[in-house]
């Protein structure tokens, strides 16, 4: 090695030292090696086990015996031939669309409001948003349950007192649609703060002079938003939409706890609840693994368009 270094140092500087270059080139990889190792352990290994499980029959007897039975694609076949799976998928896509749409639209509106109001009001609203964001889902579900209680709920009381109609002992969970509507209200409420505050930060990038010029030229509010504001905040909105799709497609806590185990039925299943019922309640872990892999594929397809657009914008900016 010493002789080679000597030989190289006497030559003209056309090729740099190979071993030093390799060492420098290897440094980034060495630096991220600990992270990769941890991720492989925490995410990779369970993912590998999950895929293995999807090809096995693993129900309660197998759980007790700690040994699954290899059944090939039987789990996938069973799921894909089950009408409940397709209905649930459709319902979850519709649910995700409504939730993401409401969250992004209402969040953006709130961010636009935050720009307009005075400092004190802005502080108040922001504090409120942060408090909403910090509330654990399980706690907010319990508050929702109390508020919508048939006998003693405050929602029924307030609506009746304000003469919106007779809501005395109104049951807010009487049909699958109303159950999912209540879940939507809770999920959108919980997701608003993140969108509102992020978009508010993004709105600071919009050049004020451009907006003023447009206003002077007689453009209306909606036109200003569409032509000036939206292009600037588009990357942020794309990120938020992708994240919201991921979160809302797989939402479990709010749906399961708010509807309640005693009222969970195929007619109000969301994908994550359907997965829970099949895998954990009915003890069919192999089937559950197959469903989760299919869920992953569905979410990938749903968010593909947004992620691709995000990457394209990134390329243009570089």
């Amino acid at each position, binding site marked *: 090695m010493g002789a080679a270094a000597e030989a190289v140092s006497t030559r003209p500087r056309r090729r740099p030292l190979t071993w030093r270059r390799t060492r420098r080139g290897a440094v980034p990889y060495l630096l991220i090696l600990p992270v990769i190792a941890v991720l492989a352990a925490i995410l990779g290994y369970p993912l590998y086990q999950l895929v293995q499980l999807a090809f096995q029959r693993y129900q*309660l007897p197998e759980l007790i015996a700690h040994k699954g039975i290899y059944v090939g694609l039987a789990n996938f076949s069973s799921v894909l031939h089950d009408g409940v799976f397709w209905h649930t998928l459709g319902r979850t896509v519709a649910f995700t669309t409504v939730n993401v749409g409401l969250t992004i639209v209402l969040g953006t509106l709130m961010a636009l409001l935050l720009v307009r109001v005075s400092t004190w009001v802005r502080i108040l609203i922001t504090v409120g948003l942060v408090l909403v964001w910090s509330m654990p889902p399980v706690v907010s579900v319990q508050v929702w349950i109390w508020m919508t209680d048939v006998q003693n709920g405050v929602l029924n009381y307030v609506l009746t007192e304000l003469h919106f109609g007779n809501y005395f002992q109104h049951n807010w969970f009487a049909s699958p649609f109303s159950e999912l509507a209540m879940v939507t209200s809770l999920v959108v409420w919980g997701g608003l703060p993140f969108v509102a505050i992020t978009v508010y930060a993004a709105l600071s990038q919009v050049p004020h002079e451009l907006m003023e010029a447009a206003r002077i030229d007689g453009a209306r509010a909606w036109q200003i938003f569409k032509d000036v504001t939206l292009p600037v905040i588009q990357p942020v909105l794309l990120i938020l939409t992708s994240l919201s799709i991921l979160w809302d497609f797989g939402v479990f806590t709010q749906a399961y706890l708010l509807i*309640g185990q005693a009222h969970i039925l195929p007619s109000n299943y969301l994908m994550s609840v359907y997965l829970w019922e099949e895998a954990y*309640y009915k003890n069919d872990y192999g089937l559950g693994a197959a469903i989760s892999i299919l869920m992953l594929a569905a979410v990938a397809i749903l968010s593909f368009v947004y992620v691709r657009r995000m990457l394209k914008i990134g390329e243009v900016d570089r």
Partner: protein
Amino acid sequence: MRYRVIAAAIAALALGVVVATTASASTKSHTLVVWLQVDAKTGWPKVVANATAAFKKANPGWNVNVQYQTWGTHLQNFDAAIAGNNVPDVIEMGNTEMTKYMAAGAFANLTSYKGKFANSSHWLTGLTNSSTYNGKLEGVPYYAGSRLVTYRTDLFSQAGVTKPPTSLAALETDLGKVGSKVTGVPGFTPFYMAGTDWYSALSFVFDYGGSIATFSKGKWVGQLASTKSVAGLTAYKQFFLGYSPHSAATLDEANPAPYTVYGANPGRAAAIFGPGWYSCCTGNYKNVTGQFLMPSHVPGQHMTSWLGGSDLGVPKQGHQQAQARSWISFFTNSANEKALQKVGNVPNATNLFDNSLNDQAAKKSWFVPTAKHWVDVESGNVIRHMLANILTGTPVKQAAQQADASMNNLLNQP
């Protein structure tokens, strides 16, 4: 020289540590892990304490760690414990939950130890059946609970009803009188029950001679659409829609718990249908509360009552099964069963019955089909869904046929 002294000191220290740990290991205490439901913690903590004290006396060097579970999560916790080789030594299971786990081989065979448990020759048939699989005893009956009516004696006598009704028709007439006499309480109902409370609703089905499902020619066949069952469901629909609030048609019996509707101020129900221990929680109406058995549509008889209950199992993967059986035998001895009876439960043996309403109801009881996958029918809310449909307008026979179809699917899984 100095280093040799230090090395010698370290060696001595190490030796001392080894000796100390070995010494403590030989006198280390063993722990028995017991999973009970929170009902024991709130309802009869002394019974648990008695059993533990007696067990520790008979098994010196042993501790008992009682971990309380909730009905909604304890099965998933048990599954996780099985997967992690960390099973409790004793576990309380609902009587409808036992079959699936027995069929999967989760519990140890207790048949040869049956005689060691108190009153085992007089155990309630219903509970014993729920603890037996393929002729092997794999659980010990713990306690049972039946259903009866808890009512406001003051409101009933205000309406001129001084004795409990002896037929369903008479009950309906009485409830009508009670309802018409009560004014000024918004949302008042003569009889509060949750529409999807199948423990109460199916009593009507059995009252008319119907049943849930039968096993014939190697297959389970749902019977809720049979003529007799449909008659019972129609009678239930008529009773509910006549005397219970329609807003409760799709609710279950936990949200709200009927005794909260009854006992809160103002009391919004003159009568509720539920377990005998509802008498605990009558709030302001403690002194004007009575109970009677739900009357049958046949005058002079009472309706067959749901017999809920729990069994105690010893998981097969446990390594301390002898001590587990010992603890169970202390927990279910006559004195403790009597104590359970005092707080409104049905003891596990008929020789301990004292002719209370609870015990009378337990003598004429119905139970769910002892199918391996029955618990999937429960968790799939098949019967609840059927009841909600019936009470919100779906024709009875149609709803019952849908339920039968679901049950046939679920119960006949391999």
